[in-house]
């Protein structure tokens, strides 16, 4: 056998540690998914594959309400946050910087600069007072809270897309006497759409996953999927918890895979 060429990229042990890392990342999640398909009564005691715990979860009204709430919150918060973030990105990403642009940036990213638990409790204090004053106890508070921390996440890909777009097409459109609005609708928006879509998906996943802010801001009796899971955990680990976890896992992975495909095909 010929002597192996000296490879500068080779570091002894790197592949081994990388292998351990990938196993460590995925084996616990696989164990969790396998446990969700366990047909036995006792969590963790394998008695053959079955979908019974998925059926039990879907049959559970509390789970269904929590899932519906999660969906309402994620869709509303991601939609509003993406709209507001798109406008803000258009304001700061085009042409020469205007006065106070740095300030706009800092405020837009402010929710990311504060630890989540601090953001959640500060909001809880203010909203508790608002709940007393208005008497309204609905999901609106959770939606508003999620919208707030979703804005900087939605802003990120939209601004990145805008930064890579050149102004020539818009200038051409305006030179041909198209109005500002017509130019936006027929030129800017179609070009920006992949960024907006990516921003929406990011905001949606971030909202769907949130547990800390939801659990402090929600009114008594309201649950989103993660807060429901958290309250169930206080009792004991059951196969139903594994089934619900697995469902959440599938939801996140399908969204990430979908956005992966969308961004791949657009390029």
């Amino acid at each position, binding site marked *: 056998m010929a002597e192996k060429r*000296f490879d*500068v990229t080779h*570091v002894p*042990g*790197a592949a081994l*540690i*990388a292998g*351990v*890392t*990938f196993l*460590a*990342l995925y084996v616990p*999640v696989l*164990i*969790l998914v396998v*446990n969700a398909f366990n047909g036995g009564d006792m969590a*963790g005691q394998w008695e053959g594959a079955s979908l019974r715990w998925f059926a039990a979860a879907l049959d559970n009204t509390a789970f269904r309400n929590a899932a519906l709430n999660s969906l309402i919150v994620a869709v509303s918060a991601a939609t509003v946050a993406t709209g*507001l973030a798109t*406008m*803000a990105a*258009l*304001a*700061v990403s085009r042409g020469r910087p*205007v006065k106070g642009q740095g300030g*706009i940036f800092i*405020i*837009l990213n*402010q*929710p990311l*600069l*504060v*630890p*989540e*638990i*601090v*953001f959640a*409790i*500060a*909001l809880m*204090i*203010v909203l508790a007072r608002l709940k007393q004053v208005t008497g309204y106890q609905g999901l609106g508070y959770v939606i*508003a*809270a999620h919208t*707030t921390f979703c*804005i900087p996440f939605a*802003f990120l890909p939209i601004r990145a897309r805008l930064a890579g777009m050149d102004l020539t097409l818009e200038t051409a459109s305006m030179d041909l006497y198209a109005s500002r609005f017509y130019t936006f609708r027929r030129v800017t928006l179609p070009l920006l759409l992949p960024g907006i879509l990516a921003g929406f998906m990011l905001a949606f*996943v971030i909202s769907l996953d949130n*547990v*800390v802010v939801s659990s402090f801001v929600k009114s008594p009796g309201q649950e989103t999927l993660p807060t429901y*899971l958290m309250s169930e*955990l206080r009792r004991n*680990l059951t196969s139903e*918890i*594994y089934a619900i*976890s697995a469902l*959440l*896992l599938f939801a*996140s*992975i399908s969204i*990430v895979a979908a956005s992966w495909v969308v961004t791949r095909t657009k390029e």
Partner: protein
Amino acid sequence: MPHDAPASENALIREETRRRWSLALPALTVITLLSIVPLAVMVAYSFMQAGQYAGVEPGFSLDGWQAVFFERDFFDDSLIPATAHLTILGRSIALALATTALTFVFGIPTAWFIATRPPSSRGFWMFLITVPFWTNLLVRTIAIQEVIRADGTLNRVLLATGIIDEPLQMMFTNGAVLVGMAYVYLPLMVLPVYAAIEKFDFRLSEAAYDLYASRLYCLRRVVLPLMWPGIVAGSILVFIPALGAYVTPRLMGGGRAMMWGNLIDLQFGQGRNWPLGAALSITLTLVVLGALIWYARRTAKKDHANG
């Protein structure tokens, strides 16, 4: 054309500034009302008196801030260090640093491995790193909890193979919190380090070896300096959420291995000392902001130095 005249050009700039600010205004309003104002309320609460049952009572007081560091002695009312709080704050900093170190040990070789694959397969490996990052943090914590709990997978395997006779009690310890946090925050270390190594020009290493540099010397003097910005970014990305972590220490550490975030929650809940909770919140925010500002200034200086 009207915009040849400087006076109307100024008017145009003013108009443009006004138009852009009004575009950003809705987002800025939402964030101001729902994030900045509540934070300001938190600052105000930290300087008020604790209510008898919960909440605050009007009136300036430094009791909340004092309670972060000191407590009244039960017998002679003198000020003594608030050992219980300080232990938790110290544990939070130590565990956040240990988490950063552990993700470093596993994350850097992993990033290196991915960045040195053929370009066509790098996307696949990075996809494997980003999937856990986008899946629910609570679900991932449940997954790692299932592995190390008393009747969990690891204990069952060890018992079945006869390595141990009794299940290891690993839950609700500092070690459990550390393992949990390293597990959930690992992707945050890999992502920026990978980005740094991927840009690295390996001809530089070749040049070093041609000039008779040893492996270690090449790593230390050629590779590491170019990887360093990625390593610093990864460390900041892991350290900050780990320091303020709430869900993972609560599930893995319970009441026995509490962290800063759980202590804040406790003061607003059972502890019923809102000014103390507020002061602890502001302190945590300031530490996080301090780390971010240090990082931002460091990167700005580096960019400036590199032209």
